[in-house]
């Protein structure tokens, strides 16, 4: 009943535009550009690791233990004489892969659970209590328990990191479904006899895409961090694989004499996660101003 707002300033809110025009507007966001650029560079380094590396990353060279960064070993060597630079290059592969895999699993599983919970009242209560329970268990501890019980392995680590992320995605999707369901255009679709599956597909699902992309990005960042932490604590990727977390775990004892073993891979983790986070913030600002960052991406 309120009088219409006065449309003075052309409110070109991205959220009101059709998807194509929003996608084009993305490239004007500095966060998106920075994030994509850094990630592309890291991705190229990871792909080219075999060519760019100076030494075999798992080659033990007892005579070259704990060398400081120099012209020969650019980022120094660890306590077994392995070349930190080469190991960090290969570590990028593990981190990017895990980040991507976890985000995909969490988004797909969360989407399904969220859609079901948002549409079937009966299952909603049960599913959401289970989600509450999973969320109550601190991520790292749940992952630690799973890895301890099933033995170290990339797949185990991915699943162990992904499961605690699922409830956040599910809750997000559910809230989108619940709010979009009340939109007059969805009621209008019900009114013109559109069947429920088609309403889901046509009118509701498209509204989840933008928040899911954003949430998926944050999940990816969280996963890269979690992997580093798990490996660092000795409950992650098998130690023979040079992941960033593993490289740092092996630098622990010698930190006071050889800090580079931890600091360089640490910098890589921070830069990668930063790029993903900044990309996520940019995407959120452009695509979905409704999600307030913070509740998501808990380490």
């Amino acid at each position: 009943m309120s009088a219409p707002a006065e449309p003075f300033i052309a409110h070109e809110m991205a959220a009101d535009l059709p998807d194509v025009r929003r996608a084009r507007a993305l490239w004007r966001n500095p966060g998106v550009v920075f994030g994509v650029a850094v990630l592309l560079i890291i991705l190229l380094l990871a792909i080219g690791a075999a060519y760019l590396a100076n030494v075999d990353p798992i080659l033990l060279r007892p005579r070259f233990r704990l060398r400081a960064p120099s012209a020969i070993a650019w980022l120094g060597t660890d306590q077994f004489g392995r070349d930190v630079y080469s190991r960090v290059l290969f570590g990028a592969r593990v981190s990017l892969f895990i980040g991507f895999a976890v985000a995909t699993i969490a988004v797909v599983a969360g989407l399904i659970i969220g859609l079901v919970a948002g549409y079937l009242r009966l299952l909603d209560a049960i599913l959401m209590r289970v989600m509450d329970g999973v969320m109550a268990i601190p991520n790292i501890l749940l992952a630690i328990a799973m890895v301890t019980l099933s033995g170290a392995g990339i797949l185990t680590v991915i699943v162990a990191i992904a499961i605690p992320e699922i409830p956040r995605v599910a809750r997000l999707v559910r809230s989108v479904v619940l709010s979009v369901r009340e939109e007059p255009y969805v009621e209008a679709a019900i009114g013109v006899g559109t069947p429920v599956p088609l309403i889901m597909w046509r009118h509701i699902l498209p509204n989840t895409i933008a928040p899911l992309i954003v949430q998926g990005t944050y999940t990816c960042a969280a996963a890269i961090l979690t992997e580093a932490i798990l490996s660092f604590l000795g409950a992650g990727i098998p130690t023979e694989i040079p992941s960033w977390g593993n490289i740092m775990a092996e630098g622990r004892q010698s930190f006071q004499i050889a800090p580079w073993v931890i600091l360089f891979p640490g910098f890589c983790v921070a830069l990668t996660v930063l790029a993903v986070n900044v990309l996520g913030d940019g995407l959120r600002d452009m695509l979905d101003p409704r999600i307030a960052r913070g509740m998501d991406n808990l380490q």
Partner: protein
Amino acid sequence: MSEAPALDIQGLSIALPRSAERGFAVENLSLQVRPQEIVCIVGESGSGKSVTALSIMGLLPRALKATHGAIDVGGENVLTASRARLRELRGNRIAMIFQEPMTALNPVLSVGNQIDEALQWHAANGARAAPRKRVLDLMESVGLPDPEQLTRSYPHQLSGGQRQRVMIAMALANEPALIIADEPTTALDVTTQARILRLLRKIQRTHRSGILFITHDFGVVAEIADRVVVMRHGRVVEQGSVDEVLRNPQNTYTKMLLEAVPSAEPRPARLLPKAEAPILTTQDLQKTFGDAFFLRAGRTVRALDDVSIDVHRGETLGIVGESGSGKSTLARCIARLIDPSGGEIRLDGEEIGNKTQAALRPFRRRVQIVFQDPYRSLNPRRTIGQSITEGPRNYGTDKGAAWTRAGALLDLVGIEARALARYPHEFSGGQRQRIAIARALAMEPDVLIADEAVSALDVSVQAQVLDLMERLRGEFGLTILFITHDLRVAARLCDTVAVMLNGRIVEHGPAERIFREPQHSYTQALLAAAPKMRHFERATPRGSLPRIGTV
């Protein structure tokens, strides 16, 4: 009248940011408000009336800048005042009442605290005599019951009218020279609106303040204004005494606006084919909303309480009521968007109130609904064509035929058929509402439900959409259920009217009878409260005799 004006605006221009569709929000505006005078600025959306109000308060959004002119309040130009001085003036020499009393009060502070704050910030150093008494006096003077008790209440515990009274009390706190009221009754029910307007007139008599009253409603202007300023696209198109402007408008835009205002006069009865059985009936329809949840006592609301109506083919039934009366619930039950809790809905004799969604399918297309909010009733990601053809395609019309018909329908509602490929954001509110009507018509319905379908539109647009509905009704032999809070709009279109109060129908009959001889006391109250322009029946170009005004 030689007194200095409370407000004197001279040649005010406010620039819009470069990206906007026009250069100025307000252009070369001059107006005066004298003490104890009520001046109304009338205009539709985009006219610049609210921006004018905010500029006087020094509360313009950052993107807007006053570039020319002066706003003089009590001998001081607020445009050049420092931030600190502005703060001293606000709430002290100039006070403001906003449109939405629910959101304009801080939800986490008590009412007394908020009124007291208005006093606190402008108290002369130390000299504060009995502030609490002053708060209670203020609340008393705006007609709030039991001030003692109310000071400790929070805004959500008050009714809409009471909240607006609290706002008025805050505005009066420091006896300002000027009170700006920005659409202060627009969000209120008619009966509440009438009481608030009465209160403002009382304030005009008992206080020295001048009042600048912003509104889109000429009915309200007729009720309250001493002088009128009509604005359009940021410019004043006409100003003068309320008598001059309402009786004898000079500007064509003013004339058009006045034409568009629906009067509470019922239209002459149409000749309807006296139909056999009614096409749509409800029998003792009930809807109860509740949160009966385990371990929690079910607090339930009876939104519909034994509602029985019948509508004949071709008839337009107006369902009129204030907020919370259950009128929209009734619409949504009949459209079967929600399930009724009891009673029957019959369409051509067939019970549809208890059918499952699957069994409803054949009936869906016969009852269509148009919603209030034109900005949310079309999916922003789908083209107009996709939205209009969605229904027919669901019922097996082939794609080509559905699109051809969609084009024809768009043409019929006054939008060029080429627009089918465009997205909703490219259309104005009125156009979107036309598109929503076309979508409903594409289903070839027997019954069209318009749920406050014109309430969000400007008067001139509203009049056009009402004209359209009237035309289509004849062309398609539509039966219309017209849900509205506005008696004047109902009078414009409806053959029969049902008045709802607290989920019940208190009166139901031919429009003519309801408007001329209302039986129920509530209907009488509603009619009395509806802002009327009757006193100002205009001198029409044909020169019929104007009735004498009573101001």
